[in-house]
């Protein structure tokens, strides 16, 4: 038998996607150096891409629609701020300059989300389709209300209405946050890349295609789903913590459904199920969000909602799906992007 044929793993990250990832990681710092965008803009933009990529690990690869994903921003956000609050004698943030301290704490906060994901994931991932989506929504709201009711009890004078503001004497330069976010988002993108090239990733996609057939052919579906869910939670929490740092504090808004909306819309626009699509979706959504906000303030989200409806009805595979249908010089673009 011949080894000369070319294997074209559809779910294998093709070079353009890798290029896209590397480009993102390199270009963003360049943009900052050249002062083309403000540091804050870049931080927000990176977070969009990061969130999209993080959600992609569970939603894109396995097809499980997670409406309540924002719960991990909340859990990690509060953990992060509480960590800083109670670790103040050690001054971690200052201790490691240029963002390392911030990143380490964010990793810890992300791990908390990962653990929660493993614990709830085991029962909740037994549900399929809409039931899973609604269950995650239930989790988000349960967490929201529990946090809302118990956090003030920790420190009634300081944590009123479950809002925790970072200490005023804590000076966190934007460049430090930028570095940390850049690393966090890069890690998330690289994780996507590694997963898509791995046996684990193939198993996840098989789950998406036909979960029963995947289980029958040997894919350990339960284990894989939980791992994907908890990785997704980790990266969401990681980035979420840093964004909380960027905002200067956390409140119940961290659990707000709008974050889930952002993340899901990014994936839908970019194209559900593709790593390329999730990154593209992040960029496009950021640009779209910003443009609509400037040009049509007030009704910007209404227009966005209409766009999403049009995509679902007429282009359900998102922009990646549209691109896939074209060819350049006889190479089907579908074969190039994952």
């Amino acid at each position: 038998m011949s080894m000369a044929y070319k294997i074209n793993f559809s779910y294998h990250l093709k070079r353009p996607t890798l290029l896209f990832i590397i480009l993102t990681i390199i270009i963003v710092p360049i943009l900052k150096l050249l002062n083309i965008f403000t540091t804050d803009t870049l931080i927000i933009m990176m977070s969009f891409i990061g969130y999209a990529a993080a959600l992609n690990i569970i939603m894109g690869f396995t097809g499980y629609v997670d409406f309540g994903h924002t719960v991990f921003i909340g859990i990690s956000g509060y953990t992060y701020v509480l960590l800083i609050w109670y670790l103040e004698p050690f001054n971690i943030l200052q201790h490691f300059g240029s963002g390392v301290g911030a990143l380490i704490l964010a990793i810890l906060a992300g791990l908390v989300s990962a653990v929660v994901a493993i614990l709830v994931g085991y029962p909740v991932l037994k549900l399929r389709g809409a039931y899973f989506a609604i269950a995650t929504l239930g989790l988000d709201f349960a967490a929201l209300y529990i946090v809302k009711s118990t956090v003030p009890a920790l420190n009634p004078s300081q944590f009123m209405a479950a809002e925790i503001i970072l200490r005023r004497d804590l000076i966190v330069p934007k460049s430090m946050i930028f570095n940390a976010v850049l690393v966090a988002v890069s890690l998330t993108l690289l994780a996507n890349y590694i997963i898509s090239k791995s046996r684990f990733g193939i198993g996840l996609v098989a789950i998406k295609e036909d979960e029963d057939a995947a289980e029958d052919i040997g894919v350990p579906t339960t284990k894989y789903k939980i791992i994907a869910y908890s990785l997704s939670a980790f990266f969401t929490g990681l980035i979420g913590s840093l964004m909380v740092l960027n905002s200067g504090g956390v409140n119940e808004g961290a659990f707000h459904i709008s974050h889930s909306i952002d993340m899901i819309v990014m994936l839908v626009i970019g194209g559900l199920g593709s790593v390329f699509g999730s990154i593209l979706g992040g960029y496009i959504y950021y640009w779209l969000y910003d443009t609509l906000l400037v040009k049509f303030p007030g009704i910007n989200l209404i227009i966005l909602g209409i766009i999403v409806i049009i995509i679902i009805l007429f282009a359900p595979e998102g922009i990646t799906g549209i691109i896939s249908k074209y060819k350049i010089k006889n190479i089907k673009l579908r074969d190039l992007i994952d």
Partner: protein
Amino acid sequence: MSSKILVIDGVTKRFGGLTALDNVSITVREGEFVGLIGPNGAGKTTLFNCITGYYKPEEGRIFFKGREITGKPPHLTTKYGIVKTHQIVKPFKNMTVLENAMVGALFGKRKGISTGEAREISYKMLEIVGLQEKAEEYASALNLHETKMLELARALSAEPELLLLDEALAGLNPKETIDALEIIKKVKEEFKLTIIMVEHVMHAVMNIAERIVVLHYGKKIAEGTPQEIAKTPEVITAYLGEPELALKFVKRL
């Protein structure tokens, strides 16, 4: 006398008030080709699902190569060496034909297999079933016959010892049926498989199987060679109609 590869001991499976399997006991020896027949609803697919672990029986135990596998999940039984094809085909539609088979190779019996090795095994299986030309096509582009062959190739890529074929011939025209049977025979020979085949296409299964087990309303009502089965009164009453008709099927070999 070859060893017992599969022992089903007193398995009962209930769904609410319905008893799908009632105290079923079957022993299969290594290298056998067993046909599992019975009218619709007799419990054949349910039995397969109990073997693979998709269902857990309420009573009874199942042993594979001496090891108890009752209730172990499908992904584990696959790794032990039991692979099932589906009655209604379940291809991974957005993957290519080769990739479909590769999933089988990557998650099958062999541990620590590399992508390259998986590719090799899968391609070989595609060649055996005759799908190598379509390796790069998306699975959604195949017709029914090809998809059934893909199911088989994917199952074989997982390197099973016991292959469970669930109505693999359903929906095929006569020529396709003959082709499929040839491939199944070839595959059994080459990989030294034990095969249990659920089938409604009577002349095919009575022809190819060495031994037939008959289920009816969840109970095993008969067991024996195709010729014996064709003459067993209970089977004829339940299923095959008149005795002469039944014998004609057997004579059609």
